[in-house]
């Protein structure tokens, strides 16, 4: 029961999804439109709760047991609660009953998003530029002729991508463009075709009910 019911539903939905593209009849179209627009949309909205619940549970647990780094959990929970309350009561575009400004100081959810989320998220990823440089210096090595080939191709493309390359010689951007459009296209197409087959095989195994790792157990 615990495995069979979800598995049965998965197979049923899989068959409906797979056949939907082949059936132009309005009966099929209408049913699929309902499945997508109502059923899947609502279920996927609730899916957020799963991740959110996991997150909040873990951090409240951390707080209760004063695990290492517990003060940070306060920042997480407070950030969540404040934003959610302002968003739910103040409204996403200021349509709610909660006032979202004191004088010129606005604290509606869009402002919080623009002023807090953007700096944090964008900076977090910008760190990678620095790590890239340090890795370039300390660990990107032409250990084999293949790795050397990779680095040479990378150099040409890097030069071709920046205006400086065109200043050195107008032929550099052209070679770089050719690498992207010809050898790169060939390699990516080959890899993609192979990986696509791998993904298709796995998808079909899942739909046939023989690949069950998604049920969350090791077997």
């Amino acid at each position, binding site marked *: 029961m615990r495995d069979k019911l979800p598995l049965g539903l998965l197979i049923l939905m899989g068959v409906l999804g*797979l056949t939907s*593209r*082949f*059936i*132009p*009849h*309005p*009966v*099929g*179209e209408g049913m699929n439109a309902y499945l997508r627009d109502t059923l899947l949309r609502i279920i996927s909205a609730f899916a957020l709760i799963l991740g959110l619940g*996991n*997150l909040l549970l*873990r951090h409240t647990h951390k707080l209760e047991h004063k695990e290492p780094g517990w003060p940070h959990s306060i920042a997480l929970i407070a950030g969540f609660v404040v934003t959610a309350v302002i968003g739910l009561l103040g409204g996403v575009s200021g349509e709610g009953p909660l006032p979202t400004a004191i004088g010129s100081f606005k604290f509606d959810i869009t402002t919080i998003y623009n002023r807090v989320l953007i700096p944090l998220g964008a900076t*977090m*990823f910008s*760190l*990678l530029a620095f*790590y*890239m440089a*340090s*890795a370039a210096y*300390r*660990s*990107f*090595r*032409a*250990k084999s002729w*293949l*790795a050397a080939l*990779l*680095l040479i191709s*990378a150099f040409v493309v890097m030069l071709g991508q920046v205006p400086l390359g065109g200043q050195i010689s107008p032929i550099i951007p052209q070679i770089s463009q050719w690498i992207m459009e010809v050898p790169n296209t060939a390699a*990516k197409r080959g*890899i993609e*075709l*192979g*990986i696509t*087959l*791998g*993904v*298709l*095989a*796995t998808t*079909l*195994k899942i739909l*046939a009910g*023989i*690949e069950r*790792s*998604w049920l*969350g*157990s*090791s077997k």
Partner: protein
Amino acid sequence: MRSMLICCVLLLVGPAWLAANAQSPDAAGVPPPLPFTAPTQVVAKDTPSDGGHAITIEWAAVPGVDHYRIERQGEDGDFAEVTTAGRLETSAEDSGVENDIPYRYRVVAVGPAGEEGVSSETAPAMSGPQWFNLELLGVAIAIVAFVALVSWYIRRARRGDDLFVRRIAGLEAVDEAVGRATEMGRSVLYIPGTGYISDIGTIASLNLLSEIAKRTAEYGTPINVPNRDPVVFTVAREVVKGAYAAAGRPDAFNPESVYFVVENGLAYAAAVSGIMVREKPATNFLMGPFYAESLILAETGAMTGAIQIAGTDSTSQLPFFIVACDYTLIGEELYAASAYLSREPLMLGALKGQDMGKLFFMVLLTVGTLLALATGLDVRWILSTSGY
């Protein structure tokens, strides 16, 4: 009788002659509109492979035409325009019809000066919905063939047939790498990717983990498995436990060796880098799907001097593994490696099915090109679908 006939002719021709003469001063220098060839072979039929409410009208091209006007007969018997088509087109669709009602059409060829040639009207046509999209027959056949191929090989693998998988460079090094850790008295670090349980890369990685954990169990080398995803973590722990039991050393399994770190990718990379620097594992395995933070892991590992064996199907991270690690399983090699080591029929069978798919691709590409270049025959229509 004869006079009546003459009267009739005069009555008919007279006004026409007068009219023609009356027009001629205005149209001086411009030749009068020529009678224009009417479109022939006009056929109306239900648009195939659709959901109904559409009729397709086809005709033979008329030379020198400017455009075509497609007209439908209304209930009053008169024809009215429903759509137009450019001069190069020989078919059009009327998508404003009711199902199961017969409609007649005619096509008017319009010349550059507005001259018209009106076709005869078609036999009545009715639209209706279809249950199968015939344009996708090729796709349907491909799916069925692929399913058949994979299930055939899975069955063979389950029956115990010896299915050959070639050796994979990075895998040869696994035993050596685990052995080296044992000699040095250090641990083995296994990172099962930073993806989710639903990723194929994670599934492949967990299969590999099982095999590598069996080896560490045999050698008595400690293994360290930090996880980024809580669900992957619970499965990974089961996997390692099972591997120790299978190797006959269930007592040697340390539940603390498989643990959850943190969900945020960068924070995970920072924490695992810390482990690498502090504990200096002799061998690092980085297997599974990776995201941007892979770079930090690979770099730190390279700095600590550990042997690094990486494998991922995340193509954008592969370049960094190739230049920073000692061995790298590229893309599908990761899937193949887990099938190769585990000999698990499901994985082996699927791998074989995929291989046959690739073989088919290669044959189709070669034969198709040779045929096209040698005979001028365009074989690409086999691969045509509705959109392309």
